[in-house]
């Protein structure tokens, strides 16, 4: 690991002052950044440790939503009673990511900023447009089993690795950000960028902006929601495909549906086309399949990852069928 200087920030103001120095980076739980520094993919000059900032509260809002401090640990959020009852999809998504040790360390803000686990991003000897802009993409024509099929470009096919962010995308969370220029609120759908011609630009966050909170709006349909993840081993692995879904069925007809996908997109993927197709149709496996196909029609596959289209379709259908059973008739 390259040497760096270390500053521990006692409050948000001092964190924002310290981040102004050249090559400075915030350190939250460290589960991703410390690893990337050891691999020399990240080489900050200064680490601004924000883990002692008082941003660890989970508050219920008057409108029925919830405000989550950016430094709430993933495990604490998943175990919170209000999240488990009102937003089970979020608790399940978090619990399906990483290990208990990592969830005890990782923060909500940091989870949103996770870097891809694409093998070529980690391999210093390989080209990667995310790591070295303009160097090319090793995954195209390489070993691409874990890469994305939605939102890709000719410059990058890396998946976004987060489970939590898929659930937050389903729930239309808002990300609150602070800098010396003030506060801004970013809808999660606008937070992560598609790779396009600049895969190295992953979010709209500026280098000196600090995530301070994530807010969940009230989402009544989320009481009947779940997260289903398919991976190469039973636990503690990144998704091949994951599905976050919330469903309300009335008289056998889909009244409200929300759907988001992980493991297949270059960003946490809200399946709006599937939602549009499914709303108002009979809650049957056939409708679910048609909705999944409508979303996945945009998929661009490589020989190694072409299986993800079928796997995603079947996982969407299976998840919606589970929710149909749980939806009050």
């Amino acid at each position, binding site marked *: *690991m*390259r*040497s*760096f*200087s*270390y500053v*521990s920030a006692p409050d948000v103001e001092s964190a924002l002052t310290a981040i102004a120095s050249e090559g400075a980076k915030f*350190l939250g739980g*460290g*589960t991703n950044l*410390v*690893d990337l*520094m*050891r691999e020399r993919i990240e080489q900050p000059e200064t*680490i601004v*440790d924000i*883990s002692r900032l008082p941003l660890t509260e989970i508050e219920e809002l008057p409108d029925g939503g919830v405000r989550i401090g950016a430094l709430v640990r993933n*495990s604490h959020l*998943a*175990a919170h009673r209000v999240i*488990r*009852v009102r937003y*089970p999809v979020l*608790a*399940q998504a978090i*619990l*399906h990511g*990483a*290990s*208990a*040790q*990592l969830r*005890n*360390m990782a923060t909500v803000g940091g989870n949103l900023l996770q870097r891809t686990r694409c093998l070529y991003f980690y391999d210093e000897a390989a080209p990667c447009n995310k790591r070295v802009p303009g160097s090319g993409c090793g995954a195209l024509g390489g070993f691409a089993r874990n890469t994305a099929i939605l939102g890709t470009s000719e410059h990058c096919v890396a998946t976004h690795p987060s489970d939590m962010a898929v659930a937050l995308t389903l729930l239309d969370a808002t990300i609150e950000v602070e800098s010396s220029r003030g506060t801004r609120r970013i809808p999660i759908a606008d937070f992560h960028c598609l790779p396009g011609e600049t895969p190295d630009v992953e979010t709209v966050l500026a280098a000196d902006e600090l995530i301070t909170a994530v807010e969940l709006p009230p989402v009544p349909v989320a009481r009947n929601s779940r997260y289903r993840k398919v991976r190469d081993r*039973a*636990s*503690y692995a990144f998704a091949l495909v994951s599905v976050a879904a919330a469903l309300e069925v009335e008289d056998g007809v889909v009244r409200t549906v929300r759907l988001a996908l992980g493991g297949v997109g270059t960003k946490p993927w809200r399946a709006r086309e599937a939602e549009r197709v499914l709303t108002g149709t009979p809650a049957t496996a056939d409708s679910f399949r048609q909705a999944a196909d409508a979303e996945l029609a945009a998929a661009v596959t490589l020989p190694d990852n072409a299986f993800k289209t079928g796997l995603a379709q079947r996982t969407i259908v299976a998840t919606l069928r589970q929710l149909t059973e749980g939806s009050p008739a």
Partner: protein
Amino acid sequence: MAEITLRINGSAETLDVQPQVSLLDALREHLGLTGTKKGCDQGACGACTVLADGERINSCLALAMQYEGREITTIEGLDHPLQEAFVRADGLQCGYCTSGQICSAVGMLAEHKEGAPSAATEDLEAAEEELSDEEIRERMSGNLCRCGAYNGIVSAIKEVA
């Protein structure tokens, strides 16, 4: 170099470290507490698991400086029925992952007692889920055992739970 004070197994330890020194290296190389093991050094195996304020963490991904003021417990500071139970149940073969397995299991039992759910928990609204074999395996999935002593590890944890 900076002088920091870590609270390890109930006593205050002062040491000089560079910012890039992990909690794991501080324990092993600076304080001689070699019970905590270095496996992958990238948060994938769990051999380095210690408790910070009673919660299990991977010490390889923790910068020592970040943990100043926290109460760290390593295998050397534990006196827990799980240790005997691992021996009785053959919860190990080579033993390299065992310190991490035991620290992790101590943290896991505390999480379960507080009602924390896991990915294996079907009813998130239920007050308490029984610690079934499936729950134990899911909750312990952050600790790999290359010898494959998993059946013994599950038995040992069940005996103590």
